[in-house]
């Protein structure tokens, strides 16, 4: 909570250009803190800085379709919050591994070649009974 109290909400971006600039600033800030993150969470044996950087980039690209500066501001605010939590060591190692190293696909990564040619039914069948 402390981070939330401290955070000063910057004024809204006037236009899309300004919001866009803020996104890049946020990305750079995140990338600059990566060495410290690697250090405090001891991630050297599971990930590299470039992997984490591309994870951040892909998370940003997930919202590439958003054009409303207000929404972008809000997302940057949330991202900043998350970044602060990480840098302040408010998280634990397994949070980092779970969210940014392994990702949402789970530990078992299917090799692309085997999956090819399977129907969606069979893909879901291999994953779970409830898909």
């Amino acid at each position: 909570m402390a981070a939330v109290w401290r955070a000063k909400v910057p004024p809204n971006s006037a236009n899309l250009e300004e919001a866009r600039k803020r996104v890049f600033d946020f990305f750079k800030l995140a990338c600059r803190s990566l060495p410290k993150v690697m250090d405090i969470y001891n991630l050297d044996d599971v990930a590299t800085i470039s992997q984490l950087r591309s994870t951040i980039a892909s998370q940003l690209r997930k919202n590439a379709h958003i054009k409303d500066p207000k929404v972008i501001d809000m997302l940057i605010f949330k991202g900043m919050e998350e970044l602060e939590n990480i840098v302040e060591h408010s998280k634990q190692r397994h949070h980092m591994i779970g969210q940014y190293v392994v990702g949402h696909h789970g530990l078992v990564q299917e090799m692309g070649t085997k999956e090819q040619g399977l129907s969606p039914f069979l893909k879901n069948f291999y994953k779970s009974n409830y898909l």
Partner: protein
Amino acid sequence: MGLGSLTSRAMIRRASTILNTTRSHNFSLVRSIVSTPELKNTASAAAEATPDPPLPPPRPPVNNARVHFPNPEDAIEVFVDGYSVKVPKGFTVLQACEVAGVDIPRFCYHSRLSIAGNCRMCLVEVEKSPKPVASCAMPALPGMKIKTDTPIAKKAREGVMEFLLMNHPLDCPICDQGGECDLQDQSMAFGSDRGRFTEMKRSVVDKNLGPLVKTVMTRCIQCTRCVRFASEVAGVEDLGILGRGSGEEIGTYVEQLMTSELSGNVIDICPVGALTSKPFAFKARNWELKGTESIDVTDAVGSNIRIDSRGPEVMRITPRLNEDVNEEWISDKTRFCYDGLKRQRLNDPMIRGSDGRFKAVSWRDALDVIAEVMHKVKPEEIVGVAGKLSDAESMMALKDFLNKMGSNNIWCEGNGGQPQADLRSGYLLNTGIADLETADVFLLIGTQPRVEAAMVNARIRKAVRSNHAKVGYIGPATDLNYDYEHLGTGPQTLQEIAEGTHSFFSAIKNAKNPAIVVGAGLFEREDKDAILSIVETIAKSANVIRPDWNGLNVLLLNAAQAASLDLGLVPESDKSIESAKFLYLMGADDVNMDKVPSDAFVVYQGHHGDQGVYRANVILPASAFSEKEGTYANTEGRAQQTVPAVPTVGDARDDWKIIRALSETAGVNLPYDSLIDVRERIRTVAPNLLSMDEREPATFSTLIKPEIKKEINPVPFKPSIENFYMTDSITRASKIMAQCSSQLLKK
């Protein structure tokens, strides 16, 4: 209600209260416990009497019950709280009140049992009657004016409640009935806020009724519902009343267990916590449970049940009302098999290694191995067997899959070598379970309904009790819980009846509604066609099949049987298993594994590590009936559905999905991806399986079948079920069922 009578009553009341007040000065220490102030307060009673309050609109009947008038001219009119209702002659006051939408509190009255009238909780006021009357035992008379919420009725209930609670222990916090207890609810609604009893409460020794019913007899309020249930519905004279007055106790007269197959129902009908479920004791509270309305698969009746679960665990199974199938009872096997769902479960696909041990593998690997083996064997050497508990969807998928692989050797266990699936009437209980009640002569051929289908047996017993139906039985010596005539043990007796030389033939011939019930155990006999044709001869000559009454029945044994025959799971040859190189067991555990060649590849798909697993090369874990949505047809041809109550165990999948996935791995894609698609496919084969909860009777009677002349084998009929409590993989894995078989089957 005339205004004059009300005022005059108020006057009398005022006079008596004046008398009371003058006296009560001396006894000012006496606490008044009456919580109905209008009884004491003359001013309020008088004030109430003068302005006639507008009546609320009439209420619909309790539970939206509909009244059936057998004779329209026998209707009588009674007034309940000022409203007139029409009820048939012979209704009790309590039933008339229910029709008027007034639920009368009761403990001893139960609509399916005889009337005892001993709890006195249902007292109501009837105009011109000097005392409140017990509404459950009083017949409604024309023009009767019944008042259910007058001060007198309220005070009567309060008094009864005080007497009942006098000797009832205050252990609701540790009582399993807590939360669903009639006494608890009614003492909240009708009881007083304090009692005057200061002496010691009585205590009663608990009785041992066996592994299913736990007794805490101190809690008993002597409503005698359990005694009446045991002697009337279950047909065992095990329970009774001992002693009189405050020494009255319910118990078995001598030290013995309750040996009925319906004993679990006393748990439901007990209004207090005197009889509770022993396996469920202290396991959960009823408000923590999630109820799922499903159906039972342990026999062919398809009893309607509610599966109560907490998280991923089935905590108990209770009956659900269905007048056409199980009324409101279920058998003990249905009720207590649920602990088998937690034991011996298969949770991972497994392949047997070269050392003979199973090794867990991924679904992909398991399916790949099976598909590879299937392509190596000849199509006619592929054999599929559906198990007792299979649902229609998975049987449809299995049949389609094996047909696409080129094999037509698929059957469902219990149907014998060459089942007759051409005419539905040849394998259904054509009369219908509910209509068996109206039969007046039964001929049971090679069937022991008490162990094969306990709910059907309860119907036959009902017919024996109410219509004095005559029961003839051909088969090994057995214990049915009604009087029956043991005609013989084998097909020879049947032949005598068919020839008309046996005395029972005239009984069938002269009966109004004769019912012949053939056991499905005969399907396993070599000479079953000959026996069935003799039975048809009897049916024809005794006029058992008429346009308005079809009395020729087959009583099936397993939940999957009717649907499998509807879907046409009939093998090409009955010797296919001896020449099988690839055997697909879909939950089939009772296949004779000695006949399977040693080099055959056996796949077992199922939810329990039961008999089929011992010989299997690959195990595919599937979901049990409590975890999947599946269609089952019961022995009378009624399609019903199970509903998933809990998640599947481990890495298990639904049966039809496994076969659909395997078909894709094997390169013969089945054209359905969802349950809806499978049902569309079923629609083309057996559309009756899609009309849910409705009984689809057979269209043609068996009599159009050409007659078969075959020699019968004089070997006597064998009992088709040896152990009532353990018949399938779920019940065989159940600890409770094992206890029952060791304690209750002891002879």
